[in-house]
């Protein structure tokens, strides 16, 4: 599959938990995540986000995040990545779930994005 999902949260368990939830409806969608700082503290890490990009088998990614600094670290990781990464300012759980279920169903990106649009909250 060409499109994958990356979940970024300040808390490792939040990132892992969201992935557990969305994998239920997206067994075949490549999903990776980055949670917490390099020291497993609350925060985000550009290095961890870059690793989540590289470890994802898809070459085009949809990225979802929880709060402010996650977005800035995502943007820096995107600038350094060779992959095409789409970043959404949407409600984390709902939008990651929406994207996962639609990608599993083979829905094209434009249609996925149309359904993500009303979930924009930041």
């Amino acid at each position: 599959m060409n499109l994958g999902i990356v979940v970024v949260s300040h808390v490792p368990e939040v990132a892992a938990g969201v992935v557990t939830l969305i994998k239920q409806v997206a067994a075949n969608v490549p999903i990776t995540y980055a949670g917490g700082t390099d020291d497993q503290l609350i925060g985000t890490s550009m290095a961890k986000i870059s690793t989540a990009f590289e470890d994802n088998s898809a070459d085009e990614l949809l990225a979802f995040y929880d709060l402010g600094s996650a977005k800035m670290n995502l943007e820096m990781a995107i600038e350094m990545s060779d992959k095409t990464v789409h970043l959404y300012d949407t409600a984390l759980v709902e939008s990651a779930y929406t994207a996962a279920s639609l990608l599993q169903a083979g829905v094209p990106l434009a249609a996925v994005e149309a359904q993500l649009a009303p979930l924009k909250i930041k």
Partner: protein
Amino acid sequence: MLTTTQTIAWLNNFADKIETNKAYLNDLDTPIGDGDHGSNMVRGLTAVKATLADKSDADLTTVFKAAALALISKVGGAAGPLYGTAFLEMAKASKNGDADLDPLLTAALAGLKKRGGAVAGDKTLIDVWTPVTAAVQADQLTPAVISEAVERTKPMVAKKGRASYLGDRSIGHLDPGAVSSGYLFTALLETVAQS
């Protein structure tokens, strides 16, 4: 003209001020944030000091880039990508042969605005970087310019960052990022004695 020796001394002085005021920065960040600005900055600047320890023979670009990478990888909070971007922009600007503060800070401020999406008046570090950069351009940076800029964030309503979730309740608190930026520029004045 900024030299490598001055820049390392400036950043070490900044690191010392952050270390001294770690608890104060955490306290400022508690009512309107997540209470970790001091701890996060200390983690970042400890890494900056370590990486600069063997850079006394390096060029300005290498010094700024090393500081930027340490902050980006170690801070953890929003201050990491923000301060990291500021120093990365200074690294890029110095690559063009610019070692004057004016073009360096101008490039850093533009990078900060792009990275954080904040504008003046949003109760962020931009509210310190903007008047300080203007004062440097006019060759008029003084301690008063810095402290007044920091104080002006107190009555503002936060529009960006964690404090923005509190809306009007953010009024009456200094912005922690503005305060830490105040230390950066106070350290600059002390080290480079610009005024």
